[in-house]
């Protein structure tokens, strides 16, 4: 079957504006969704995991989903709106710790009155936690109205270090545990407690699917065009009636909201118990690399980048092993650095829009194949 749009005439603009206007792409999407929602649970049910056990679920699929979500969050801000941020870790942390506080009850005695919120169920806690993250995102986005590029990156870096410090030093956030580490309460959703890896996986999958769809809708709508216009040529954008304040701060808010959800999932669903270290500057860079490698300004790219960054260390570990070449753990982690670094340099030079663009150029060639024009 050729990859063609020939013969697939769009009867309306609505059809032409579907997420995947080409039938083959739509089929591919359904296959992926079916695999994710049906095949994986079946594999788990019959315990026929390749490589045995639930390793793939725990160590690859769950972190892949959550980090993809974080990458979508950063992509909204950096890829679509063009505001470089090194503070992803901080926004994830705010999501995680706020969710924790809402789950365990908030009690703030003030001079005149006391703010007291009883412990809330997990789902509203996550959404409220993400809202906190969005709020802080807006605050740290305000400098973006004055400063750009690297200077803005430094401002977001400041956010990263500030919140690293806050969550280590301000014991209130960790409910005064002696170790500074916190454990997530039970994951109860609508009366159902999520415990097994497959349930955790499905939980993440639902979150990621919903947010990916919402994000995709946003970026191909009016606000998405405002973000991209601001990214590509802010002066021209303003001359067309796009308010920089609204465009930038909405990107900061939505981006931090999504990263806040990702942070909460990372803490509650993937880690279960965590320390502030889980959201340090390394996490920020990891997510930035995912976005750069996967594709700035592409939702699909967020998934590709997350998959690559997660799978690379495993491949570098397993492949030499399978070939009978023993490689030490240190060498593997060194190799990961080298390969990631080299790849980023290569991409920045050859294809700054990352894997996603390579993918779409490939498709374009395929569409014309076998005639180059």
């Amino acid at each position, binding site marked *: 079957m050729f990859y063609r749009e020939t013969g697939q005439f769009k009867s309306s*603009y609505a059809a032409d504006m579907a997420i995947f206007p080409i039938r083959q792409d739509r089929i591919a999407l359904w296959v992926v969704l079916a695999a994710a929602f049906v095949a994986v649970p079946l594999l788990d049910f019959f315990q026929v995991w390749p490589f045995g056990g639930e390793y793939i679920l725990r160590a690859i699929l769950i972190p892949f989903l959550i980090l993809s979500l974080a990458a979508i969050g950063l992509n909204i801000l950096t890829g679509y709106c063009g505001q470089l941020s090194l503070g992803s870790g901080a926004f994830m942390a705010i999501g995680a710790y706020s969710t924790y506080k809402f789950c365990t009850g908030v009690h703030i005695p003030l001079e005149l009155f006391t703010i007291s919120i009883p412990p809330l169920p997990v789902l509203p806690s996550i959404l409220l936690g993400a809202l906190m993250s969005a709020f802080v995102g807006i605050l740290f986005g305000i400098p973006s109205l004055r400063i750009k590029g690297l200077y803005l990156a430094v401002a977001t870096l400041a956010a990263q270090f500030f919140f690293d410090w806050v969550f280590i030093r301000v014991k209130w956030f960790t409910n005064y545990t002696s170790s500074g580490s916190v454990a997530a309460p039970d994951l109860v959703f609508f009366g159902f407690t999520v415990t097994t890896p497959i349930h955790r996986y499905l939980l993440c999958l639902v979150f990621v699917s919903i947010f990916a769809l919402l994000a995709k809708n*946003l970026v191909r709508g009016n606000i998405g065009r405002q973000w*991209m216009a601001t990214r590509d040529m802010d002066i021209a*954008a303003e001359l*067309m009636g796009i308010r920089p304040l609204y465009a930038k701060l909405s990107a900061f808010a939505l981006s931090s909201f999504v990263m806040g959800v990702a942070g909460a999932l990372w803490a509650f669903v993937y880690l279960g118990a965590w320390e502030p270290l889980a959201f340090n500057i390394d996490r920020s860079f990891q997510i930035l690399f995912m976005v750069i490698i996967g594709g700035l300004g592409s939702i699909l790219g967020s998934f590709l980048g997350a998959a690559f960054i997660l799978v690379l260390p495993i491949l570098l570990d397993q492949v030499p092993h399978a070939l009978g070449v023993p490689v030490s753990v240190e060498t593997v982690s060194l190799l990961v650095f080298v390969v990631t670094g080299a790849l980023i340099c290569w991409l920045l030079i050859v294809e700054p829009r990352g894997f996603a663009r390579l993918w779409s150029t490939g498709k374009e060639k395929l569409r014309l194949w076998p005639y180059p024009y």
Partner: protein
Amino acid sequence: MRAPDGPPVTAGDVLLSIDNVSLSFGGVKAVSGVSFDIRKGEIRAIIGPNGAGKTSMLNIINGFYHPQEGVITYKGEARAKMRPHDAADGGIARTFQNVALFRGMTALDNIMAGRTLKMRRNMFWQMLRVGPALAEEVEHRHRVEEIIDFLKIQEIRRTPVSRLPYGLQKRVELGRALAMEPELLLLDEPMAGMNIEEKEDMSRFILDVNDHYGTTIALIEHDMGVVMDLSDRVVVLDHGIKIADGTPNEVKSNQAVIDAYLGVAH
């Protein structure tokens, strides 16, 4: 500080008037004491040698530069200092001397971006993209497709603009400005760097826009032939000063203009 909405201006009346406007950058006087007006429905050319202050004049009109002196009256109301997006709100659109498209976006998205101010659905609707949000998107897509047909750029609608040749980029940029359905359209050298054929196409588009939609146009152009053909009235700037103002024929025979263009020492 919104753009004045004012009463509707009928054809032939003054849409915008510039009174005694001066703008300087540090020591450089880009515009000094210039006055002229633009009437509803006309094509008004602004000409002059390089560095005459033409682009600065457009930048003043759409609120990007704020003149140190002078009064700008738009639709009958003296205009306060305003931001560019307020000018856009008030119905002023423009294209740029050096193409200023959104390079990472397709031609279609660039033109759709011109509809921003006309789209009303908030972010939550856009996120869901169903019902009224989708209907709005489709409705504006229709308008944009009309513009695409008008400019004959159907084949390139899905092409990222950075890959388009210069002439087509200029055309897409015109499309983006038209998508705003402006009352006053500012065109900064829309034909610079084009060959004869492209210039003829562009001239036709400009005349058609003016004819069909009654859009008032202020046009900066170097090619005197084009200016003669297109414009109703011409204002001539040199070194930031207005040296002539009138019909193309009046201006053409004006001695000061001939001197300025031939580079006679002042």
